[in-house]
């Protein structure tokens, strides 16, 4: 079934090429001129021969020198066209990449919860790779193939209009063959891309779990599974090879028929005295050249269709909605109805601060996750003064983690409001800047401690060392972390996260003690850090163990997403203990 491309992809392509459009058009014209010059070469020779029945050396000299000039000019023009066009085109499509990145970053978090990572990353790997590969160099080639076809047609027509009939007939044949094969090829290509994923995923799982597979004596099972998946993939690739072979064979038959028809027609025209033998030879040469070129044209054509599918998939990403309150960076250049930051960095918020004693005000907050029927948070309200400490307790599933997410506005809430200094921050980044989340599973990458603390090199080493010392993390800045920080203990991760929070210098610290799994050494350090370093900050502590919240000013007890109790620490803890 032929699916029409969505209209927006051409808009996206236009936006991508917009800054280069004048230069692109100029070099395309140059390129076309160059191809015409090239092709006229043969025409010149043919004319020359038909004009000179007996060749003199002097005539040849004038021919060769004029050919040399034409050739040099057309070669230089081609060179300019191909290189400039390809370079500009590469720059243009990489703009699509950047714009997609700006938007995906700002998608709502629920999008990532419900979409497998692989589905998102393939857009940036194979889809982008495909587009880049084809729009980089081959597009210039594809266009020059089209120039060739147009040029050849013009030159053949100039030789004698009768040949046009042959060309039209052959063109019709080519078209029918293309249509017939296109659908089949497209199906096979789709099949290959569907079957690739499972075999690669299985291979990657095996790499990671080979020890478990051996220990469970499942080596045979896994080999069989792999052979099955790989065989499906290879077979589908074989189908493509066969389809292409069939496609080319059909094209070749038509090409040969065209050659025969042009030969017969040429013969007839020479007998009639309407053409010279040299011209017939040129026509036959052109026929083979044209059929070769046409074949290349069709091969590229189906590949470009693939690339357009890639553009379509990125285009879809460019047009997806972004999260509420998020703004695209000011240098984002595609117009897609998404809100954008102003060029001038407005650093100061409008000073419409109402006089308020409260640093943080949460009112009537309710949150229902997308795809769920029941609210996870319901009418949660509390207020915190500057440097006040709030402990949050509750059983697993009471909504503690959701409350953190809600405070950072990671998910849209159905009702309620979060005010900071009694004001609502419309820009979500401004809002998040007010908080530092300390958590053992926040963000740890393979790299040094320095990379993990200060990814964008904003701070001096002294400042970083000072902070590490302050939180008491006994590691050097150049210490290497494994993927996801696997070689750090949970406690060390908490401390690292704390150091990062301190560097951010936010006003409100949220301390997420996600599990009780902390080695004793780090636990001591964290206790110290919380007491000393964060003394003047507003704090929210989500606790697993009650001793973490003992020194809080008040406690919020969450149950089934609702506030069960909010009051002074001894009061709430007593009630909580009693309920166990």
């Amino acid at each position, binding site marked *: 079934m032929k699916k029409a491309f969505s209209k927006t992809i051409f808009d996206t392509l236009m936006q991508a090429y917009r800054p280069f459009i004048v230069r692109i058009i100029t070099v395309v014209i140059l390129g076309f001129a160059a191809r015409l010059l090239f092709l006229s070469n043969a025409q010149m020779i043919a004319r020359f021969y038909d004009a000179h029945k007996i060749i003199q050396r002097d005539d040849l000299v004038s021919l060769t020198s004029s050919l040399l000039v034409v050739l040099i000019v057309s070669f230089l023009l081609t060179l300019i066209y191909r290189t400039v066009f390809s370079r500009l085109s590469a720059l243009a499509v990489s703009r699509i990449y950047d714009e997609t990145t700006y938007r995906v970053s700002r998608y709502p978090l629920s999008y990532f919860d419900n979409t497998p990572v692989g589905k998102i990353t393939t857009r940036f790997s194979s889809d982008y790779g495909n587009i880049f590969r084809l729009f980089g160099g081959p597009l210039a080639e594809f266009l020059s193939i089209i120039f060739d076809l147009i040029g050849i047609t013009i030159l053949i027509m100039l030789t004698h209009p009768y040949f046009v009939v042959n060309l039209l007939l052959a063109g019709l044949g080519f078209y029918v063959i293309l249509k017939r094969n296109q659908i089949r090829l497209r199906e096979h290509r789709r099949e290959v891309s569907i079957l690739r994923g499972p075999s690669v*995923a299985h291979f990657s799982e095996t790499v990671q779990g080979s020890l478990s597979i051996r220990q469970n004596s499942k080596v045979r099972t896994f080999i069989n599974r792999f052979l099955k998946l790989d065989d499906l993939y290879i077979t589908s690739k074989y189908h493509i090879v066969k389809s292409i072979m069939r496609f080319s064979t059909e094209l070749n038959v038509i090409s040969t028929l065209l050659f025969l028809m042009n030969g017969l027609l040429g013969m007839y025209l020479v007998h009639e005295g309407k053409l010279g033998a040299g011209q017939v030879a040129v026509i036959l040469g052109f026929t083979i050249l044209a059929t070769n070129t046409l074949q290349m044209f069709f091969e590229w054509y189906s590949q470009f269709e693939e690339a357009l599918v890639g553009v379509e998939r990125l285009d879809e990403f460019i047009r997806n909605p972004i999260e509420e309150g998020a703004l695209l960076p000011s240098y984002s250049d595609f117009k897609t109805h998404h809100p954008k930051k102003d060029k001038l960095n407005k650093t100061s918020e409008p000073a419409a601060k109402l006089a308020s004693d409260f640093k943080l005000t949460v009112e009537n907050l309710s949150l229902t996750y997308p795809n769920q029927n029941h609210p996870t948070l319901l009418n949660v309200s509390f207020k915190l003064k500057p440097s006040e400490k709030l402990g949050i307790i509750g059983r697993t599933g009471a909504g503690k983690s959701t409350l953190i997410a809600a405070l950072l506005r990671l998910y849209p809430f159905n009702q309620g409001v979060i005010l900071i200094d009694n004001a609502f921050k419309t820009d979500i980044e401004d809002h998040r800047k007010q908080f530092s989340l300390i958590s053992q599973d926040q963000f740890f990458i393979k790299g040094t401690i320095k990379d993990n603390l200060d990814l964008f090199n904003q701070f001096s080493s002294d400042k970083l060392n000072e902070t590490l010392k302050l939180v008491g993390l006994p590691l050097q800045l150049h210490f290497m972390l494994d993927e996801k920080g*696997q070689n750090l203990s949970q406690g060390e991760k908490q401390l690292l996260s704390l150091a990062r929070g301190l560097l951010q210098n936010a006003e409100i610290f949220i301390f997420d003690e996600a599990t009780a799994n902390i080695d004793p050494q780090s636990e001591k350090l964290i206790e110290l850090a919380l007491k000393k370093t964060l003394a003047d900050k507003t704090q929210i502590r989500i606790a697993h163990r009650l001793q973490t919240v003992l020194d809080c000013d008040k406690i919020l007890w969450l149950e089934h997403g609702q506030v069960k109790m909010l009051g002074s620490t001894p009061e709430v803890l007593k009630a909580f203990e009693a309920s166990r």
Partner: protein
Amino acid sequence: MKNLRSQKDVVYFVLFDRLAVRIGIMLLAFFATLAGLAVPYFQRDFMLQLSTNPLFVCTLLALLSFVLTQMTNFLGQREALITQKALSEKLYHHILRLKPLTTSHKTVGEMVALYTTDIPSCTMWLEQTIPYALTTAFPLMLAPIFLKVVYHIPYSLTLSLIAALVCVNLLLARRQSGFFYYFKILAGQRMGLVNEWIQNIRGLKSLNWIQGFENKIIKKRIEETNNRIAMVTNGQIMNSISSSVTFWLNLAILFYVTYAHNELIGQIDLIAVMWVMGVFLSKPLRQLPWFFTMMFDAWTSVRRTGDFFSLENARYHIDDENTALTADESLVVEDLNLIIENKIVLKNINLKVKKNEVVAIIGPIGCGKSVLFKSLMRETPFKAKRLAQLPHSYLPQEPFILSATLTENIILDYHNEPSEAIHHAVKATQALKHAQFDIEHDRISDGLQTIIGERGLNISGGQKQRLNLARLFYNPLPLFLLDDPFSAVDVGTEKKLIDALFTLKEQGHSFLVITQRYEFLKHCDRIVYLEKGEIKFNGPYTDFISQPKYQKFIAGDIT
């Protein structure tokens, strides 16, 4: 199946496996070339006589040449796929053989890339290089002979023209494959960042690092694009030359005829010469640069693949493998030592686990706990006087999850039909329950049939770990080796898990448990304290906790 062990093996396998077919392909290419060369000869006849017979011969020969060329390409691609499949199978076997320490310097991504890019690239030689080489090389070799014999154009001219062309193309192709090499590296690095970005999007959002991280990706993207632009430019120079080369050759021949040839050849003859250059050689000459580029490119992949195949496991050694366990033992280790890269990792390990015993292994980070487990499973090159144990199952520290249904993950096997799942449903549900896996969770919508993993539902680290535990509980073996089973569970769940373990203990199973949760120690029969690869303590909890040194360790004294 023969194993490959080196680069040389890979080259031989790619080139000379199924030799008869390969030779067949060469013959086909040769005949395709002959047929192609015969076309201008008969075309000359046609031009001279202007009659139908030579035209038909011409047409048939052209068709024959097309078909034979087509067959060559097709068979080449078919061979490439067959070889790709065979190499993949060998690689997969090899991966399953390699032990953790052997591959410790390789990342998962690198090894997956061997399968996804390097093996297809190795077989490029068959898919493209060999058919191209043949359809390129034969015309290049035969054309000078043809020109000499029929038109007396000297070898010195044709051969030096061809040599010049090959040199220019080789040079450009060499450059091109260099760019291509960097392109792969840069794209890999960029995708590493993209993966980090998507997987950590929550953390990045909460840190407000979105824009910064974005710029980091885009910086890499720009680096990649710049390399790509240099590559495209070089490629376009190659293309400009190759697409105009027939015209240059024509001109060169014409110059020769004009200035140096002693006999003036007739007009028809000259047209035929031009046909050879312009049409017959046009495709081979267009392919020439890409042929070289692919050749270079495939070579780097062959090297990488060969290097990986040459990895070998170092062997372990046990002096006494014959003494059987007594009826009340489930594990005996005597004098086990392990040295990795000149560092003593495990030293004189002596350990016994009786039946029905729960033994905890604790110690500071990096003391050798996990590597001890791996040695017990004979996955490291240790030396030991004796090592014997009952059948055992192992819980890895990093959970192992398949992109498959929950049931398939538990039984570690794949269903051919979805209906097979029913046979396992009762036991699987039971195992999940024991492992405290939360199957009632909202997101696990299809129950046991829910597909999880990379291509399905993304479950939390804790859930993954409990699923791994369920795999062990599904078919409990006499001895359990559990590496940090409580690392991602809350206190309530931990209690329930401990209960589940003790139910199994009562049924006669034994446990060796690495843990950081010291609450659990109270329940254990014995504590083994490991420090710098040595067992420093081995005894009951009460003895352990009575020593000040260990009290300090448990209390987490930081001074």
